[in-house]
Each structure stands twice: as C-alpha cells, then as structure tokens.
C-alpha cells in the first residue's frame, strides 16, 4: 500500500532540526550572506536554503519520520501484514506525497515509529517525529507544545460495557469499576462526568492503551472501558465475541481528531492543510472515509459507521480554495 523502510532504525537526536527564533534569525543571516556569495560566484544552488524546520530536516535526510498508533482501529493500527494501516495513515501518506512534490524529491524514505498516548506529544515536541498519525484530539492545552492540521474526524467519549452488565449511562457506574487509558482526553472526560453527576464509589483502573483496557473488560476486572465511541466500535469489531459488548451512553466529550505536527512550523502545516483541503474539495475524502468506515477493513469486519452530518460539514468548511 505504501513503502515502509526495510529496517527500522533507532530514533535520532534532534541536532540540526529545531531552532529557537533567535538562532533561526542568525542562521538566516548567515544563509543570506552565503547565498549572496554563491550568486556572485554564479552558482544556482538554491535547494535547502528555501526550507526550514521539519521540511529542511526531511530534505536533508531524505527521510520522513512518522509516528503511528498501534491499536486505534480504523485510524492507525497494525494490519494483518504487521504494517500500520488505517484512515489517518492514508491521509498521512497523501501529505507525504505532497511533501515530496514540495521539496522536489522522487520518493522519501518513510520511517514508521510506534507511539502511545504518553509518547506522542514529547516525540513531536522534541522533533523525533514529523507527523503523528493516529487518533489524537486537538486541544488548546496540547497546542502549547504541538500543532495540528485540519480536523479529520469528529467523535466523543462513550462507554464500552458487556451487555449483561446492564450499564446504560455514566450514572450506572456507581459501585462499579472502569478502566481508563492514562493520557487520553477520555480519562479526564469520565472523571469530570463522575464528579459532575456525583456518581459514588467508582473504582478506576489505569491502563496503558486500548488493548489493555479491553483485556481488563474481557476478563471482568472492570465493568466498563471508555474511549472515543468510534474506537470502541473498532475494539468490538476486533474482539472474539462481538455480540457480548455494547457501546452505551451519551457523548461525554467533544473530540475532534487531527494529524499532529511540530509547533511553530507554518510551512509544514501549510503542506498538510493544503493536502487535506484538496481532498475535502475534490470529495476524495469520502472515498477514503468509506474505505475505512463502511467497508470491510484489513483484519476485521466493517465498522458500518456512515459519514455523519457534523463531519461532512467539517469537510466542507475546511475545503478552502486552492
């Protein structure tokens, strides 16, 4: 589907990538002098000087490092051939194509790095990865450290329970146990809801990721697991006995997903947003959506979640003219 590197190399340092603005100004001055000198000598070498930040790093190394989630069905997860696939992965590959065009390279070496809710933000912030492709909610607090492209999916927090438990809403959790993935917006949404509705005596088990949260529910360690409802449908579709589980309750949060990018790097963000706006405008986004949300997907049954009106409007709003 897309080229993955033959071998996964170790993560690299951040040298030569990120500069604070003062350093960058210094650098630009030097580059300006250098390019002036080169122009005098008569060379037409423009190349790397035109880029900064992530694009410069990508151009220099000939490699783009993409962080991806491993169990966020169908956004980014490990498919049957042990490579990450999914809706967000497809969108990211479109962005990689656009980056290749922008910097004039035939094909970039794509290095895939698995990330978790805890590692994704530091890895973007310290420059180890240049795109994060998964199911990351765009929040204002996170924007202090990272940047986001346009929203690509809209969902919210719900509960995953076993049918037999009879739980319907967050209020029914009184005296019950729930698993929550540390570092997710859902963790906070559920804790806030428990406080708001004054639900007594709820036991919370902290888990690392969706797979572990589902394991806790499957083995009856907890009565519910909570994350974005679309991911809960993904977990059910991959489980051994999908009939036993149900997604219940009202939306407890608003979670717009977006591809995460390095902060203070508007050239990189422009390419990502331009790619997405093109897809939104041409309607190609609906084909990609249908491929992952209404058709059978690699490794599991179709999710059967048709394009919602909210998401369709979101696509229309961000289909800026080219």
């Amino acid at each position: 589907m897309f080229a993955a590197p033959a071998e996964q190399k170790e993560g690299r340092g951040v040298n030569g990538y990120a500069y604070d603005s003062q350093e960058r100004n210094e650098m630009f001055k030097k580059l300006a002098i250098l390019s002036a000198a080169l122009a005098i000598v008569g060379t037409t070498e423009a190349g790397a000087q035109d880029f900064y930040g992530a694009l410069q790093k990508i151009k220099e190394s000939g490699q783009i490092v993409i962080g991806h989630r491993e169990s966020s069905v169908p956004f980014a997860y490990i498919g049957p051939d042990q490579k990450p696939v999914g809706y967000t992965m497809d969108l990211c590959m479109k962005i990689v194509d656009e980056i290749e065009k922008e910097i004039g390279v035939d094909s970039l070496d794509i290095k895939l790095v698995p990330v978790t809710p805890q590692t994704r933000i530091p890895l973007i912030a310290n420059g180890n990865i240049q795109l994060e492709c998964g199911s990351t909610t765009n929040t204002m607090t996170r924007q202090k450290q990272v940047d986001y492209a346009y929203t690509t999916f809209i969902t919210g927090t719900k509960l995953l329970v076993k049918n037999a438990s009879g739980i319907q809403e967050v209020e029914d959790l009184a005296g019950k146990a729930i698993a929550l993935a540390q570092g997710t917006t859902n963790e906070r949404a559920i804790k806030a809801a428990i406080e708001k509705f004054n639900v007594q005596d709820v036991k919370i088990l902290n888990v690392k990721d969706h797979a572990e949260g589902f394991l806790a529910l499957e083995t009856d360690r907890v009565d519910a697991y909570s994350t974005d409802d679309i991911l809960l449908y993904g977990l059910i579709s991959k489980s051994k006995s999908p009939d036993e589980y149900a997604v219940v309750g009202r939306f407890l949060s608003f979670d717009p997903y977006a591809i995460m990018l390095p902060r203070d790097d508007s050239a990189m963000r422009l390419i990502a947003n331009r790619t997405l706006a093109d897809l939104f405008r041409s309607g190609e986004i609906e084909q990609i959506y249908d491929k992952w949300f209404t058709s059978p997907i690699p490794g599991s049954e179709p999710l059967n979640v048709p394009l919602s009106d909210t998401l369709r409007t979101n696509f229309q709003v961000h289909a800026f003219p080219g």
Partner: protein
Amino acid sequence: MKYNWNWGILFEDPYFGWLISGIQWTLMVSAIAWIIAFSLGSIVGVARTVDSRWARGLGTAYVEGFRNVPLLVQMFLWFYVVPELVPEDLGRWMKRDMPFPEATSAILCLGTYTASRVAEQVRAGIESIPRGQKAAGYAMGLTTFQVYRHLLVPVGYRIIVPPLTSEFLTIFKNSSLALTIGVAEVLFQARQIENYTFQGFEAFTAATLIYLVVTMIVVLIMGYVEQRARIPGYGVQREP
C-alpha cells in the same frame, strides 16, 4: 528544541500533591516488598545450604524460577494471569474486592522476585564461612538449628550487608515497573502530570530527583548499618 519550560508547574496544585502521593506509594510498595523479600529470601537462602536434598532442590527451583523471568513479565503474570488460574471465586475476589489490587499484585511480584536475589546472597554469605566453624559448632554439641541460629546466619548476614544494600536500592527503582499495572507511584504521577500539562521534561526531572534522594537516604542508612555490622578483623577490609 521548541519547548516551553515551566518549572513552577511542579509546585502548583494539584500536581505537587500528585508527586507527594506518588512518593508515598513508591515508599509503601518498596518497603512492604522488601519485608517479603528479606524474610522469604532468608528462608530460601538457608534452605539452599542445608543437608536435606529436598530443601535444597526446592530452594534452587524457587531461585531459578523467579530470577530468570523478566520482572515486567512477572508483573503482568501476577496482575492479569494469576487471577484467571485460581478458582473462579478467588479470582473474582482478587480482581474486584482485594484491597488495592494493583498495589497488592505489585508488592507480591516485587517481593517474590527480590527474594530470589536475596536468597542467593544469603547462600553466598553462609557458604563463605569456613567449614571449620560449622564443625566447631557441632563439636560443642549444638543442634543443626542452633548452628544456624547462633553461628551461620548471624555471621553470614554481617558479611553480605554491602550486596544487600544494592538489592534494597534496586527494589525502589524496580517499583517503578508497577506503573505498568496501574499503581500510582512516582513515575506514574510524573507521566500523569505530563499528560495534563505537557510539561514532561519537568515532571521526569522531578521523578529522577525523587528517586535519587530516596536511594541516597537508603545508601546513608545502610552505610551506617554496614559500619556497625562489620566483623572486626574478619576478611580483607580497610582499616577503621
């Protein structure tokens, strides 16, 4: 690196409180696990030195079983697998009604694992005592129990204080693995602070310093114990 530093975050409410509660969990998990490790390790270590072939075999099996499986794997085994293996009612109790299921599993795991390492040191201590001393004990009419009680165990322990210090330090550091099963110890809280504020570098620096301070205190205490427990004139040692 593009990063907005904010060291003050560590002292803001509620993050400061989280760190304090993390320290409490780390100390509690490590201390109880050490009590288990020390007592169980002593029994297993002594068992590996006695004449009974059965006791020696059991001791060896225990040590090899527990020290040859990665600690992280053992954490998951105690937390996820053991409740599925025991009878259903007990398993359900372990998963739901047992007080602090995560911390209890972590304490049992750390304690039994470290016991295997303590046992090896106890055995090494006892076996380093010249054979003549044991023979002398028997010659004086002591029973095997008395030989261990008054001679081999007290002398053996005084020899192994330095390596035991290492084990004691390791148990504090290993307790950080308990976060993988959801125990809210120091590193867990550091990650939690990172998740809420995205000031991960400050939070992890704080965790590093906390571990350093705790382990330095242990080193000081054990240095004092070592001084007091040293057997004057025994073995090659530095002049006092």
